[in-house]
């Protein structure tokens, strides 16, 4: 009796887990298959196969390429900014219980739950009041606010695991704070910092609402461009862009240190 119940438990969990994993992976597989269609339309199953849409993408899609470049710049700038500023801030507030620390931490974490579309509108209104048009820097600033919570969360977790004795040792041996930071603290929190940077980068590359509100033909990001292509005519090139993103993703995952990705925000 007991055995049977345990067996059914295993089966149920196994089946459900399999269903979840299929759910997770199916879209990526479908996209990969569809990107090799030879048709002009995205029909399933494709009536013919070819790599024409990849060729079309490389030879005949300057605006998609331009938007990919914009996205890359925005993501790199916001990753750099959020990682630097976020790490410094996390060192100040992590693990502290004072009212100031809690207030600052809540402020820095709040973009995670503040609706991005509202933030996008707020930034657009600010720029409009200043008589400015959205530009690369304003996108980068908006993205920095959006992705900073990930960095703070990851770095804070790492900081809280720091052994204070090590820092005290360094100080008692006469090391300056800055020396201690670069030679003791930084190497110890490096996994958390890198993990935060990776998640910040991915979130920025993926972000739509703020980019859409601040969209301008001069600074159209890749997801916004793809969104427009999809919303208006289900362009097959979206599938080939997706194919390339998936390929890059696979390479990145294989190259990145697995331990680094093992740290996730909680």
């Amino acid at each position: 009796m007991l055995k049977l119940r345990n067996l059914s438990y295993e089966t149920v969990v196994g089946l459900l887990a399999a269903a979840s994993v299929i759910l997770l992976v199916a879209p990526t597989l479908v996209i990969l298959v569809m990107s090799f269609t030879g048709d002009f339309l995205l029909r399933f199953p494709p009536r013919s196969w070819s790599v024409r849409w990849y060729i079309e993408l490389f030879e005949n899609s300057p605006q998609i390429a331009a938007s990919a470049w914009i996205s890359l710049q925005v993501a790199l700038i916001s990753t750099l900014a959020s990682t630097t500023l976020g790490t410094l801030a996390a060192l100040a507030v992590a693990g502290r219980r004072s009212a100031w620390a809690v207030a600052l931490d809540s402020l820095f974490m709040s973009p995670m739950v503040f609706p991005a579309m509202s933030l996008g509108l707020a930034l657009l209104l600010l720029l409009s009041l200043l008589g400015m048009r959205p530009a690369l820097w304003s996108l980068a600033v908006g993205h920095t606010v959006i992705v900073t919570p990930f960095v703070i969360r990851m770095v804070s977790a790492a900081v809280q695991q720091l052994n204070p004795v090590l820092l005290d040792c360094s100080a008692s041996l006469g090391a300056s704070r800055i020396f201690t930071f670069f030679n003791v603290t930084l190497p110890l929190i490096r996994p958390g910092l890198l993990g935060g940077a990776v998640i910040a980068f991915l979130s920025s590359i993926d972000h739509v609402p703020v980019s859409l509100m601040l969209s301008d033909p001069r600074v159209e990001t890749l997801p916004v461009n793809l969104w427009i292509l999809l919303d208006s005519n289900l362009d097959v090139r979206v599938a080939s862009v997706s194919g390339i993103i998936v390929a890059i993703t696979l390479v990145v995952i294989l190259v990145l240190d697995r331990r680094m990705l093992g740290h996730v925000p909680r």
Partner: protein
Amino acid sequence: MRAGGAVSGYLSAAPLALLFTVAYLVPVVILVIISLSASTSGFNFTLVHYVAALTNGFNLGILFDTLVLGLQVSFATMLAAYPIGLLFMRCGPRGRAIIVFLILLPMLTNTVVRTFAWMIILGREGVINISLMSIGWIEEPLRMLYTRTGLIVALVQIFLPLMALPINASLARINDNLVKAAEGLGASRFYVFRTVILPLSLPGAIAGFLLTFAGSSTAFVSQTLVGGGRQIFMPLLIYQQAIGVQKWNAAAALSIVFAISILVIVFAMNRYSRKYLRGMDA
């Protein structure tokens, strides 16, 4: 050392605080001011936009529906994430690496792209319908794209990594001996799940739930592309009011109302769950 001096201790947070003031607090304050003004030319105080946002049955319905969507997606995502977590717990290091890889793969694929995949999967002549019809399970195509169910399925997939990773992390920390001890004492696995695994993994699940709730209720791209034109949610309403019909003040008021609703729900859930968890410790 780190505790040395109240001011100097916080000094390293100053640059980020400055950035957040300029690029987050100031814009949000402007948003509030504009939401309280009759028009965009000059400031004339009025509450009319809030009254409209909160008494117009149509707007209120959309707000409510958006929050409900967020909750539905979060619950469904949690249900989908637990089996993965339980599998993860039973696996060795190698199996765990594979599971993490499978969870990360979609997370590293653009959301717009994943949404697009769902359009192809759920369509009337999409992957599911064509496959089911060709094996003769259904005769008429099922309606999935542009429906609530279709939207929930797509959003669950999109937010599953955000739920599965923290749940896995909590489950991985559960002491295996505890589970073995319980089983050794003759407890069934369902019982062990309910009394040991579930409570211990709740912190991770709650974190995932909050992230999924905030994320799915504001997931503009999936909501419009998979939800279609008849399901309107707050992000689209805000976008349409602002960019589409240029009612900037009304859009600002809707933004504030939406933001406050989300923040209140997240705050309440966070608070309640902390209390609950503390209660369990005692």
